[in-house]
């Protein structure tokens, strides 16, 4: 039974208010086609989770889709500067920035993947992040070492959206190059939506089954989204689209942002053509 659905259908399963874990890292392999479609469908009050985000979070903040961001870092990389829409949204109070060390996002997802309410985390033992955020608690070690132990509250995404290089119709997915935290994310979320450069026949995945990063039985839906990470990079497929990214970053007004998102429509829906549906 194929799990392949259209981008439109997949995004329609996202509820306003959902906690959405986004795959990739900074400018690499973010599921941008899916992110843009969330903007088109005017999703609201999303709670975004990611160790280190950039264009994805910035775009969603620009269209007012976000209520909170749990992340260790939100910024474009050096060359492209800061995530201005995210900053403005936080500074205006529209978006709550739950600052984590990237590692505490990882630990919070590990907690979810093990279905425990918290995860102990070494290292975070000083500073104001501990004081300002109620998702960190310091307890005494119940095993009597006398040491304080910091706990981070688990984060259970309603859905993880991950862009991969290839998968079969059942969702067995392979990521080439850096996997970032995507394998963990796929185990932490309640459901997993895969967007993929390529849908390949099952026998092709089976030939390299030891490389499958996300087994199909964890996957709810598969969306064919060629160039689905663009303007972010996708390892060995395409690099950052410098022009598009710079163009986005230069836009300040809502109408300009919407035009930018609209300009991707043909590309974002390209995967629906030529694919044998269900």
């Amino acid at each position, binding site marked *: 039974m194929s799990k392949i659905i259209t981008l439109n259908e997949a995004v329609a399963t996202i509820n306003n208010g959902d906690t959405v874990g986004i795959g990739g890292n900074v400018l*690499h392999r973010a599921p941008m086609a899916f992110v843009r479609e969330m903007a088109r469908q005017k999703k609201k009050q999303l709670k975004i989770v990611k160790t280190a985000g950039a264009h994805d979070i910035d775009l969603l903040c620009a269209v007012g889709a976000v209520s909170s961001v749990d992340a260790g870092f939100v910024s474009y*990389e050096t060359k492209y500067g800061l995530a201005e829409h995210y900053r403005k949204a936080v500074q205006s109070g529209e978006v709550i920035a739950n600052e984590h*060390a990237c590692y505490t996002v990882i630990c919070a997802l590990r907690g979810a993947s093990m279905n425990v309410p918290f995860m102990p985390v070494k290292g*975070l033992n000083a500073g*104001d*992040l501990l004081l300002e955020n109620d998702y960190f608690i310091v307890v005494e070690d119940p095993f009597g070492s006398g040491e304080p132990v910091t706990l981070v509250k688990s984060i259970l995404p309603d859905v993880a959206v991950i862009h991969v290089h290839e998968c079969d119709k059942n969702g067995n997915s392979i990521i080439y190059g850096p*996997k970032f935290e995507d394998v963990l994310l796929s185990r932490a979320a309640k459901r997993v939506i895969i967007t993929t450069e390529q849908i390949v026949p099952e026998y092709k995945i089976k030939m390299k089954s030891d490389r499958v990063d996300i087994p199909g039985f964890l996957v709810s839906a598969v969306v064919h989204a060629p160039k689905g990470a663009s303007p972010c990079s996708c390892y060995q497929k395409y690099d950052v689209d*410098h022009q598009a990214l710079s163009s986005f970053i230069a836009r300040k007004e809502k109408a300009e942002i919407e035009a930018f998102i609209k300009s991707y429509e043909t590309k974002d829906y390209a995967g629906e053509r030529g694919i044998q549906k269900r």
Partner: protein
Amino acid sequence: MKTSLYRVVDLMTCAIANMLSDHETVFHGVSSHLPMVAIQLAKQKHAPNLVHLNIPGGVNPASISEECYSSASGNLLKGAEAYFPLEQIFDLSMRGKLDVAFLSGVQFDIHGNVNASVIGSYKKPKVRLPGGAGSAVLIPTAKKAIIWRTKHDRRTFVEQVDFITTRGNVWKIVTPLCIFIFKNGKLHLESIHPTSSLEEVKENTGFELLYDDIKFTTPPTEEDLKLLKKIDPKDFRSLEFK
């Protein structure tokens, strides 16, 4: 003061390379071209067994010359010895087995506090900064945290940081003007770059300058500059200065 056979960025890169010892495990994150180049320089100069770790997970990438805008892209996997991704680098540091972490920040005070979070209040900030990324867990757990910062002014080196993102094992801070070292609970001026002066450092530092004696940072040698050209022909190390 010599005029520039070398640029300040080259001096900083070489000074950082000189801080690294052979066999150490060394990590840099995203937007970290300068330390990335410094690590490669150290490997070629005096520390061939350095273990270079990074976000995409390439242990000892063969080359950084394609790393372009990122310092976190898949290019760092090419020719690497193994795949050891961020998750595991964090765990490594927690276990006390990460020798050096390169981190940055936006404000620093004399007590070694680092702010990468907000200007103003945390819940309703005047300026929301990108966030400390790994700093809050790496600065306390890496044996030595080296901070580099391409700006040195009174808004960066302040009397008191607006927000303590973290503090811990800050070892050195390298700026375009000087190098600070953290000892006895306070930042001390370790050396002034030959391209700067005590006055310039004083003028641009918002806290009291502590020092035992005035030393100058060792400038890059001819060999250093040649190596830099080879390792980093596209001059990624100066990306943050542009």
